[in-house]
């Protein structure tokens, strides 16, 4: 048998399929269809966890996602371990391994329970009042202690190997919750042809009908009707049924996050399957059918294992065939617990007594209970319970008309069921920003005015009678389809044979007559918040419910107060004598239930975290053993080490080869924009600091772009291909920024200009061939282009062919040597690159990477945007004042340059730095000061922006931005480092071939 407490028949589990699992190392048997909670209960296990603060023994309270107590860790190994799972939601499978949490060394004997002894000191917010002395002890002693004591389960210790996926989906009507209301809504909406999604967080759809034994719908049992309804829905092509799928978050414009659990319930799941899937659903209309949650009654010692929600016990009995105890006492403020009592009794549980808070309970359910021989105690409350690891008795008290409680009797039992009525699940409605309205009669907050296109149906809007629920669901489903625009939604009336259990209930702490400072009535089980804690908070001035929440932590645990918030609210209302709606609720936030990080991250891991952009030459460089670096999304070859070389050696070799012979560099990642149209030159004039009107077709100019704030934003060379056509290059990281900015001006400021922009970054592969022998290498490869000095001077561009394919050949140099940038259509990039390498073989052509590129340009004093500039640098600051077209009236950023501070004399300016000891290489980012011996805080004059070993010059070089730098050239400053100051001389920021003679060849 699958446990001592399994009824011989009944329920929806499959007794023919035993399932073995382990809990805290002990092996148990359940059956297919069990949750971990039902299987444990079937085996008589009630103690399943320890509470957060006091390590109190705790048992299973609910049968659903609202469970506050039964949190366990699941997973056979570290990589699959998941803490804080609710036993009530875990479907068991063969080999499931679960363990209890927050206890040591064992659940039954937990050292942490010593906290109980200190409970009097651990009142709400106690830590704010102590641990302040001596000040140093907080960090070293108190805080580590507090941290270790807190925290529930343990974090997984190995990387999670499972897959998670994310899908966007659209539907006309999304129905959340597949109880009677949701099923009826889905039936009605889908009948119109609307695309309908129906999701439910549970493994099985049917909601409350799954545990309904007596009511008949349209002449069928609830179970049969449910099966029929679901089969009907499944047969409709326009319906998607989504079990095990929690709608956890509602985001603006009817965008909802749904988490589907795919493999957690399977033993040896197919590894192809993702563990969970995030459905990101845009729904035209949403129907909320999320039901209602039963509310516990709060009384002294209400937290012992064996104290359970009445409805949960009914679910265990009716749905799982499990008897949660032998002898039950029931404490209720409503009729539904009578129904539970009757169902339990018929399943074989003895009902010792029903204590009803109400003065004169009556009606069909009460009559039936009495008729079944149950003793109903009117105006009776629970004043306390006993039992260490499981409840063994209940103290009852008589509630007088004056509110006083007088002791009456003690009853032995191993099960105490409570019900304080139902709280409609308005979480998602509230997330959608709809306003809640308090209904005095129902004692509940109900959905009021909608903000999004949604409607609530059934118990989640306070409709509890099954027939009414079904009809409400139908109306809601039809209404939603109609609102989408589907006609023909037909009304339908369901006939239900069954009795309503009404809507009585109680909110707050039940009267118990005990001394509030000695009794402990638990409001929030998981966070161990008691009646006294809340009262203390109020006494201390925490009057807002938000303050009470944060001071006591009520409602902040992993259940987010699903069962406790209303009682906390009720207690505040009782204590402050302020009507409940005036106290108000705390804010509902996503997720509805805790949701795995992995499913939010989805596929974005490793190489799919961000696109890896590679150039056409990439694979060639890989084959050459290049080391790569990330530059924005791109992979760029950083250097090309030969066997045995480190970066330094490789770079020295690459630099020498380029300066002395010829080097080849992949510049494909540079951004490129084609600017075309009659007004192309006019736009260029307005965007760039330079003047473009005079640039002849076939010539190239270096250009600078500022933000409208006057700071350097990007730079690059621009070729004029034709009077109405420019080929812009930008920095690798700046490409999209520049294009976006230009588009902005073209579209919104100057729409009358006849000019269009096209990104051509990816159209062209750019092969930079640099060095005195570069012309010799290229000459034999080109067709229709005369590379000679006379015909193709520095800073010119020609169109023709190379290796038989079209090229835009730029004669430019970022190295200071004779150089060319060969642009070819990207698909040819690799072939042309290899052809050039082959042709250059005889000349010692050497591939070089970004590091060598940086050294060579630094030797020439060329800036790199983002290195010499940082968003606070003007063109003049970095030595680019010369690019500003003096005659230009306006360009983007010009006006900002006229602001006082932009013209101040002591701005940081670009200079060269030479260390007095030529062997010392400065560190980029090091600070420059006048006097290294001044006291801290020092006056810093600037910082090193670039610094390299120059093989060409056989010494170190650096660039720096230094306050009033240009006037300091020739003087010495200092770079104070932790191990001593480094003396530097300020020089012009150009170290090599200052006249540019090597370019003019």
């Amino acid at each position: 048998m699958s446990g001592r407490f399994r009824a011989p028949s009944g329920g929806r589990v499959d007794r023919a399929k035993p399932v073995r699992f382990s809990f805290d190392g002990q092996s148990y048997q359940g059956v297919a269809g069990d949750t971990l909670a039902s299987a444990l209960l079937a085996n008589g296990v009630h103690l399943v966890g320890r509470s957060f603060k006091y390590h109190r023994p705790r048992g299973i309270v609910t049968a659903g996602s609202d469970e506050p107590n039964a949190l366990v860790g699941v997973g056979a190994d570290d990589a699959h371990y998941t803490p804080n799972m609710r036993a009530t939601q875990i479907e068991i499978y063969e080999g499931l391994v679960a363990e209890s949490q927050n206890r040591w060394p064992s659940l039954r004997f937990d050292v942490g329970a010593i906290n109980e002894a200190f409970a009097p000191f651990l009142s709400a917010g106690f830590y704010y009042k102590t641990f302040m002395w001596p000040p140093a002890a907080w960090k070293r002693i108190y805080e580590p202690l507090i941290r270790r004591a807190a925290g529930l389960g343990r974090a997984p210790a190995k990387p999670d190997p499972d897959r998670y996926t994310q899908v966007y989906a659209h539907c006309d009507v999304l129905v959340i919750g597949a109880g009677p209301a949701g099923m009826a809504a889905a039936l009605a909406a889908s009948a119109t042809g609307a695309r309908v999604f129906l999701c439910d967080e549970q493994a099985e759809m049917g909601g409350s009908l799954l545990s309904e034994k007596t009511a008949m719908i349209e002449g069928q049992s609830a179970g049969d009707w449910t099966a029929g309804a679901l089969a009907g829905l499944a047969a409709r092509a326009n319906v998607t049924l989504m079990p095990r799928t929690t709608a956890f978050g509602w985001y603006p414009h009817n965008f909802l996050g749904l988490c589907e659990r795919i493999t957690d319930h399977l033993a040896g799941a197919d590894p192809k399957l993702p563990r969970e899937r995030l459905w990101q659903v845009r729904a035209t209309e949403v129907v909320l059918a999320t039901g209602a949650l039963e509310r516990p009654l709060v009384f002294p010692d209400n937290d012992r294992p064996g104290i359970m929600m009445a409805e949960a016990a009914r679910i265990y009995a009716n749905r799982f065939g499990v008897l949660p105890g032998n002898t039950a006492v029931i404490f209720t403020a409503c009729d539904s617990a009578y129904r539970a009592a009757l169902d339990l009794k018929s399943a074989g549980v003895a009902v010792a007594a029903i204590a009803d808070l109400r003065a004169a309970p009556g009606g069909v359910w009460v009559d039936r209970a009495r008729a079944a021989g149950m003793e109903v105690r009117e105006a009776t409350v629970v004043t306390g319970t006993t039992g260490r690891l499981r409840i063994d008795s209940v103290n009852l008290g008589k509630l007088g008309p004056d509110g006083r409680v007088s002791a009456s009797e003690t009853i032995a039992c191993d099960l105490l069921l409570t019900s304080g009525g139902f709280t409609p699940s308005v979480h998602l409605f509230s997330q959608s920003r709809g306003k809640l309205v308090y209904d005095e009669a129902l004692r509940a907050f109900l959905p009021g005015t909608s903000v999004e296109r949604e409607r609530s149906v059934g118990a989640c809007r306070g409709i509890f009678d099954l027939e009414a629920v079904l009809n409400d669901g139908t109306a809601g489903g039809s209404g939603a389809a109609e609102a989408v625009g589907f006609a023909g939604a037909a009304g339908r009336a369901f006939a239900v044979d069954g009795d309503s259990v009404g809507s009585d209930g109680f909110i707050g702490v039940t009267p118990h007559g005990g001394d509030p400072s000695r009794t402990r009535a638990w409001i929030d089980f998981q966070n161990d918040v008691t009646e006294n804690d809340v009262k203390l908070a109020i006494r201390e001035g925490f009057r807002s419910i938000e303050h009470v929440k944060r001071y006591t932590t009520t409602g902040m645990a992993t259940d987010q107060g699903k069962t406790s918030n209303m009682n906390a609210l009720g207690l505040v209302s009782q204590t402050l004598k302020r009507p409940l709606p005036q106290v108000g609720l705390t804010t509902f936030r996503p997720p509805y239930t805790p949701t795995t990080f992995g499913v939010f991250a989805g596929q974005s891991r490793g190489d799919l975290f961000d696109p890896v952009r590679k150039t056409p030459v990439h694979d060639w460089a890989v084959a050459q053993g290049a080391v790569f670096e990330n530059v924005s999304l791109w992979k760029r070859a950083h250097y090309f080490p030969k066997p045995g070389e480190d970066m330094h050696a490789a770079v020295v070799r690459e630099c020498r080869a380029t300066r002395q012979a010829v080097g080849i560099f992949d510049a494909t990642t540079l951004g490129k924009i084609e600017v075309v149209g009659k007004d192309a030159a006019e736009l260029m004039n307005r965007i760039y600091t330079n003047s473009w009107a005079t640039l002849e077709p076939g010539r190239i100019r270096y250009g600078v772009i500022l933000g409208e704030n006057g700071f350097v934003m990007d730079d690059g060379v621009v070729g004029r291909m034709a009077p109405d056509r420019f080929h812009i290059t930008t920095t690798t990281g700046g490409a999209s920024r520049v294009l976006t900015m230009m588009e902005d001006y073209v579209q919104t400021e100057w729409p009358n200009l006849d000019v269009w922009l096209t990104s051509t970054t990816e159209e062209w592969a750019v092969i930079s061939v640099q060095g005195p022998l570069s012309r010799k290498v290229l000459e034999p490869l080109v067709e229709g282009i005369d590379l000679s000095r006379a015909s193709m001077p520095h800073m010119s561009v020609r169109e023709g062919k190379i290796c038989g394919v079209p090229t835009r050949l730029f004669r430019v140099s970022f190295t200071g040597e004779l150089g060319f940038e060969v642009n070819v259509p990207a698909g040819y990039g690799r072939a042309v690159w290899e052809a050039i390498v082959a042709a250059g073989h005889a000349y010692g052509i050497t591939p070089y990477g970004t590091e060598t590129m940086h050294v060579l340009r630094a030797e020439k004093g060329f800036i790199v945007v983002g290195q010499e500039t940082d968003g606070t640098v003007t063109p003049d600051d970095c030595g680019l004042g010369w690019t500003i077209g003096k005659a230009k009236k306006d360009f983007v950023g010009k006006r900002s340059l006229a602001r006082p501070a932009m013209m101040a004399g002591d701005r940081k300016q670009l200079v060269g730095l030479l260390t007095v000891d030529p062997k010392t290489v400065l560190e980029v980012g090091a600070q420059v000061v006048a006097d290294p011996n001044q006291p801290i805080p020092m006056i810093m004059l600037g910082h090193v922006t670039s610094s390299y070993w120059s093989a060409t010059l056989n010494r170190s070089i650096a660039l720096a931005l230094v306050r009033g730098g240009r006037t300091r050239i020739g003087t010495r400053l200092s770079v104070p480092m932790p191990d001593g100051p480094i003396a530097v001389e300020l020089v012009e920021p150009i170290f090599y071939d200052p006249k540019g003679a090597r370019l003019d060849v």
Partner: protein
Amino acid sequence: MSDLAIRENSLGRLASVIRNIPSATLAVLPDTAKLLFRGRPAAVDVAGRAFGVAMPQEACRFSARGGRTAYWCGPDEWLLQAGGEASAALFASLDAALAGQSYSLVDVSHRSDAITLSGPEAAYILNHGCPLDLSLQTFPVGMCTRTIFGKATIMLSRPAPELFHIDVWRSFASYVWQLLEEACGEFA
């Protein structure tokens, strides 16, 4: 020297190791000539006549004729595609026809590569990175649009109910391909 260099498709290598699944099949489309045309209204008709396919005026639609396709990209922007043609010649002929107009024509033949995704699960697979409603009602055959797929921009078009074309910039192509394969994973 005039050896014609060999054109490389950025997806060549990935496509050669594909595991095909019937519910969603990935393949690489052959290279085509692609020009991006933009212009003032007057130029649009001229371009359409010269190209032989009128520029679709309806947003997010493409029209095709005789191997040539014009995709609407924006209110003044079309992608002109010509299978099996040399882009230079096409460029020259359009450019000549458009003389005197206000327009821009840019050869983007190599900027992107293209993927086909076909099969009954194609839309579902695409929705792993694309936020569009891909039902036939809202994304009918004949529709095209730029959109996103994961963290990449793509140009998506639907030539047949269970067939999508994805045109994607070269350096993003392998990312898009891999993400599609990852999404196909549960069917593999």
